[in-house]
């Protein structure tokens, strides 16, 4: 994360964003310069005023034809042409340079935008090497990653400013984006196409890690959930299968629905509710019981579990490392 402004795009940590950043600064600086020049010209002209007041003061200054002045328009246009042409050329070059990764992608992800969370699928040639997770994307450092974007319901937009610009997820079509992290780190992402009540809280996180760490993470994610170890966890699993399993999946158990984030390795993720809450025991319990208060309109209903049930469920979920 880049300090106190995790979504800024005035810094870049990935190949694609870094290719665009100088062009952003170039157009920004030109824009500021143009504004300053025009402001000075305007100020200078107004300082020449012959009077100030109302109608009488206006009438008191006689109308005069003055010089034609049309050549100033031509001069202005000629000067403007230089930065405009430069921007046009640079833009074309940058489109070509960023439309695809510089080398063949080493990893392909399928990301689907849902109201209001991100489904992330890591596909491999062998089906038993494929798995799903949510809201937290791990990628290896220095490897171009292709992201296939799918629309789950309405239109969303996938954006990780430090790594890559926006690409929409649109139902009925598959869009392509790509990113390549230059170094390890956690990078904040966000949905940027208005998508309903909780558009504001549709965040995600990209975790870039060295290849070895990434491989370890991937291997861990592939494993199904471990069997419950304590009686509390056992009772918790029963509740999870019976209630949470209507929407969520915990691989290796009876909870097998795919309408909501996969919980198999819930505890490996840093946040809950698509970047809204830090994944702490207190937040987890609060979220389960009272999701509508944290994220009004979310498709996760409040659960109204008894105290015993809640602590059992929590005991089980906390075992999902």
């Amino acid at each position: 994360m880049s300090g106190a402004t995790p979504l800024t795009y005035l810094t870049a940590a990935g190949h694609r964003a870094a290719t665009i950043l100088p062009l952003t600064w170039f157009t920004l600086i030109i824009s500021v310069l143009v504004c300053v020049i025009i402001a000075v010209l305007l100020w200078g002209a107004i300082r020449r005023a012959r009077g100030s007041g109302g109608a009488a003061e206006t009438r008191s200054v006689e109308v005069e034809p003055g010089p034609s002045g049309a050549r100033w328009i031509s001069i202005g246009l000629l000067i403007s042409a230089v930065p405009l042409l430069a921007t046009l050329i640079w833009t074309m070059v940058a489109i070509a340079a960023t439309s695809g990764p510089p080398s063949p992608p080493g990893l392909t992800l399928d990301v689907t935008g849902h109201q209001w969370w991100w489904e992330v699928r890591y596909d491999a040639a062998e089906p038993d090497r494929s798995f799903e997770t949510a809201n937290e994307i791990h990628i290896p450092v220095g490897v171009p990653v292709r992201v296939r974007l799918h629309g789950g319901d309405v239109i969303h937009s996938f954006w990780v400013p430090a790594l890559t610009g926006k690409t929409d997820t649109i139902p009925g079509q598959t869009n392509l984006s790509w990113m390549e992290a230059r170094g390890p780190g956690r990078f904040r992402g966000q949905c940027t196409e208005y998508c309903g009540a909780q558009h504001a809280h549709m965040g995600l996180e990209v975790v870039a890690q060295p290849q070895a760490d990434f491989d370890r993470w991937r291997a861990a994610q592939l494993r199904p959930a471990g069997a419950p170890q304590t009686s509390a966890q056992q009772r918790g699993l029963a509740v999870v299968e019976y209630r949470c399993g209507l929407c969520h999946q915990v691989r290796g158990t009876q909870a097998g629905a795919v309408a909501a984030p996969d919980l198999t390795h819930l505890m490996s993720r840093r946040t809950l509710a698509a970047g809204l809450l830090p994944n702490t025991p207190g937040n987890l319990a609060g979220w389960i019981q009272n999701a509508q208060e944290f994220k009004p309109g979310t498709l996760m209903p409040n659960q109204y579990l008894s105290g015993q049930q809640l602590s059992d469920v929590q005991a089980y979920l906390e075992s999902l490392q």
Partner: protein
Amino acid sequence: MRVADFRAPAVGPTTAEHESRLKRLWETSPGLEGFLGTVDHKQIGIRYIVTAFIFLALGGIEALVMRLQLAGPNLSLLTPEQYDQLFSTHGMTMIFLYASPILSGFSNYLWPLLLGSRDMAFPRLNALSYWIYLASGIFLYVGFLTGNGPNDGWFNYVPYADRDYNPGLNEDFYSLGMVFLGISTTIGAANFIVTAMRTRAPGMALNRMPVLIWGTLTASAANLVVVPAVSLAFFLLWLERQFGAHFFDPAGGGQPLLWQHLFWIFGHPWVYAIVLPAMGMVSHALPVFCRRPLVGYGIVALSTVATMVLGFGVWVHHMFATGLPGLGLSFFSGASIAIVFPSAVAVFAWLATLWLGRPVITTAFLYFSSMILMFVIGGVSGFMTASVPVDWQLTDTYFVVAHIHYVLIGINVFPVLGAVYFWFPKMTGRLMDERLGRWNFWLTFIGFNLAFLPMHLTGLLGMPRRVYTYQDGMGWDSLNMITTIGSFVLALGVLLFIVNVLKSLRGGALAGPNPWDAYSLEWSVSSPPPPYNFAVIPTVASRYPLWEGRLRESGAVSCVDQGMLLESHSKEAIGTSSMDATPDMILEMPEDSTAPFVLTLGTALLFVGLLLKLWSIVIIGTVVLAIATLFWLWPRRELREREVNP
């Protein structure tokens, strides 16, 4: 019999008797019937302006409530659904119910006066376009006030607007309301085009037309072309929602992107349609305060048209992130960068006019000249979004919110406020207070820039648009607080403006016909103008008829006190040829009529019936509409046109 229609109009100076006869013919009768039936462009224009200002105030209040919600992180003044309806209604109000109608209002009021004519080409259509604007505005606001306001932004993307995700009446109100409003825009545009092409005073060739006319004329031509796209899109959406059509639904072979194309092929030209007339106001009135003609009239007029033509080819720059192929994006990127040229022409023309003239500072002048800077700020941020890769980062962040507000407030609201200061004396006979005006200007100027200049940075720091709240720790807290403070200062400025209008209405200094010593024809008649505008039809020999003696231009002299008298048994105006404005026809203008009002009532019933799917109401509305139309169009002998004896 064609021959019987030839008549040479009487020519001469005006007399008191002539004027009182004209007054009897043209004056709207008092009372309710006159109120509902008037076709006087000046009354209609003022109604448009007042109605649009009411919508501006409503949209402004909505904005203030949103700014309270966003003043700090994680505030919960509003629920997400309330916020979503507020931001959507705010956009709808400002873009559709304020920004365009306010300009129609000024054009309605000013055009016949600027053109030396007695009314718009189709006065009853003019009344109809106002009534439909009012009725559709009420229709849309009934939705909002009953909790069924639009909740998918003014751009209304599918599939979120589809019934699966949006089951309430919200989107039905919005889609039908937009089709309804489109009728007003379309007939208004047609009326402006014919008015400019057929009713200019004799001698006012195209290149002598006041520059203000070019803005609205160009915008009207664009509206005729693009409004059908959006009306169609909203109608298809309504069919999809109510009858399961699959235009936008991928499950049925539809395309969500079809909506975006139909919407933006309208939406982008529309942005030009709501700034070009306002730019025209500045080009028209700034020279009065610079005490010289506008620099580069011809190139400014041409660049107005060029902006619009290029404006048809840039709509995809709203869709750079939708996954369209790079080659296509490059074209639209190039077009969006190219459009800077014609826009820059206006800036250089204004600056040259300021430098080569002898400016006098008044409140109107301050609004017009400060607009230049805000135009440039809104322009360069638009130029940044024109670059595809940069836009992939900028789009849908607060940077674009800042951009659109510099465009809409800077290029629309500021010129409009300036225009009120400038033309208020013409409309009411009284000048606005300049001391209050200065307070009013500085509060709006400082408030606006305080609210929206830092917002560019909020965007660069990544704050996404259309969020009902934001988490702390994102680095946006203080910037948002500054914006909220600025928005309240801006609102205070607008409040002072309203105070000034009300105060000056009663106690303003008397203006006389031409308080600013301005150049165009509206200043040759009394303030406020008589119902018939011109007792004799003026003859125009230059672009600056009232400045002719002082500009040392060679050639003929315009004439405002002698000309065609045009008064027989009914209201008459002169029709002239499109290019050279040679008189070729006496136009018999229609009397006041309540048919447009009744037709609007029928249309409103029709839309209410469609909204509620109550087919009996649909049928009643259609019958009322048909009867009003029949009554309106029933042939009457006195309304034919006569050719002028050559």
